[in-house]
């Protein structure tokens, strides 16, 4: 017998089992643990492989264009000049619209599901909202293109233009012909897609607020809304910001829904009604014309690498913020 003791089963990883288990069992255990570890490590390998493939796939365009790739808005397969500014702009603006609209809606839903709704209906309504997250993104794209875009062109965009258009500075954002498909519509569809994720996270965070804090606030005469705004939200502030970042990360990389409704135009217009392009929609749209070995394929891979780095940073920050509060 060695002097090792099994203080807890999770110590198994670090320590060898006691020697009374000599022979077959020990070998089986070692093999089993090794297999578990190999599968866990495979997750790391997958991420590493994605990064490496996208990085080296996009490298030739960086050699050809240098850092101009990130500062040029020229995307021209004929002259073989590729710049990512239009796509970066489209990606960021649609995601920001989605977050600006999605966050207040998600807060409202979280308030409704944690404080307002009668307890028996909270679960069913929460589940129904979660089902929205399960709808495939291509369905949002079709619905957005065939149903929402015509409504946007006929009613919503002219109405917005009539109300906000005459205001100086802001008016420029809402000028131009109401086409239906464009940056604004893409942002709206994205908002609807990230609301289920964000509201579910918000509900979880709000529910983790200690009851005594809320009761103390109620005890001094606060209303439900005041407790939510001045106790629950400040308590979960860090995690809530993490939840918003998670929503942002989702919106940045969404492909199919955006491809249907963004209008796919390689130019930047000040108006949010104008069609544009996001990184993901450009990859989806232009890939069929990018043959193996072409510079265009390299440009698309570099776009992919850029999107990966952006969403990796956003998601990493989100996870760090959420965990630091919930753990």
């Amino acid at each position, binding site marked *: 017998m060695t002097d090792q003791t099994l203080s807890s089963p999770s110590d198994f990883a670090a320590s060898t089992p006691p020697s009374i288990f000599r022979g077959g069992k020990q070998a089986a255990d070692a093999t089993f643990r090794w297999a578990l570890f190999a599968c866990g490590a495979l997750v790391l390998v997958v991420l590493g492989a994605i990064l490496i493939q996208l990085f080296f796939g996009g490298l030739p365009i960086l050699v050809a264009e240098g850092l101009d790739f990130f500062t040029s808005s020229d995307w021209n397969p004929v002259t073989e000049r590729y710049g990512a500014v239009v796509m970066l702009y489209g990606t960021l603006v649609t995601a920001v619209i989605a977050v600006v609209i999605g966050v207040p809606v998600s807060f409202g839903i979280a308030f409704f599901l944690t404080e307002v709704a009668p307890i028996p209906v909270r679960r069913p309504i929460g589940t129904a909202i979660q089902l929205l997250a399960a709808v495939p993104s291509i369905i949002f794209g079709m619905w957005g293109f065939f149903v929402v875009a015509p409504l946007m062109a006929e009613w919503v965009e002219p109405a917005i233009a009539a109300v906000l258009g005459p205001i100086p500075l802001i008016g420029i954002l809402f000028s131009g012909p109401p086409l239906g498909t464009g940056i604004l519509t893409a942002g709206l569809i994205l908002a609807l897609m990230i609301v289920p994720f964000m509201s579910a996270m918000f509900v979880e965070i709000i529910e983790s607020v200690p009851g005594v804090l809320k009761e103390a606030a109620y005890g001094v005469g606060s209303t439900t809304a005041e407790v939510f705004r001045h106790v629950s939200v400040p308590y979960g502030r860090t995690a809530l910001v993490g939840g918003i970042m998670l929503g942002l990360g989702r919106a940045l990389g969404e492909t199919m829904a955006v491809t249907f409704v963004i209008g796919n135009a390689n130019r930047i217009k000040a108006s949010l009604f104008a069609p544009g392009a996001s990184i993901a929609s450009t990859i989806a749209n232009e890939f069929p014309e990018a043959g193996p070995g072409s510079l265009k394929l390299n440009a698309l891979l570099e776009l992919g690498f850029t999107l990966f780095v952006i969403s*990796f940073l956003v998601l990493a920050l989100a996870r760090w913020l959420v965990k630091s509060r919930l753990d």
Partner: protein
Amino acid sequence: MSLFKRRMAADLILKVVASGLAAMVLVLLAWILWTLVIRGASALSLSVFTNPTLPPGRGGGLANAVVGTLIQVVISVVIAAPIGVMAGTYLAELGTKSKIGGAVRFVNDVLLSAPSILIGLFVYQAVVLPFGGFSAWAGSIALAVVILPVVVRSTEDMLRLVPGSLREAAFALGAPHWRVVVSVMWRAARAGIVTGVLLAIARAAGETAPLLFTSLGNLSWSFDMTKPMASLPLAIYQYAGSPYDEWVALAWAGALIITAGVLTLNIVSRLMLAGVKRS
């Protein structure tokens, strides 16, 4: 108005607005489903399920796309589910406090939310180019990468729900670690693990972006895993953007089929999960 009345009014207004927002999102969900049912059901017919995709005007269906989706999803699950369950078990059993375990958990969370089109690009680079062409294998591998993090996450969560006394009892009987995991932990968490795999299937079945550059789509029947293969989301994508009314109608029929399938899977697994958590 007194301060008290003003505060009560503000409270009421916020409650009404919050209820209105929740109602709005539910109405939008109902609107999407209603659109699918109205436009999809009128295009649904028996030939949709029996005929492959054909040129416009010849009464094509989606049978090859439905079968293609089933084949690719099943193969991706066969690849990813065992690896995912093992990796999730690693996190719950061995990697609770270790640095590598923390790294795996973090990377898995990132993969869970990573843009799925990048998985398609990755598989194009890693599988399609080296092996000389678009293939159903490449599509299945891309879907496997989509499924893997979902299974890892749910397996770890489910194993953590197993009471510690169960595993301690097994260890106290002298069972080796592998026996404890296989016969006690996995068995106790079985329903939850299966639910996680079902949710992963629901997610993979509706994915379009990872298949665009991997299995490519196919207008005729194909059961050859080394050739391009049709799938429902790809067929919807191709048909929805086509100028033929007949194809657009087929796209709606496909959209109805895939959404009905995905939502049914989702509801079933959520009901199962509620049962698991209650017991």
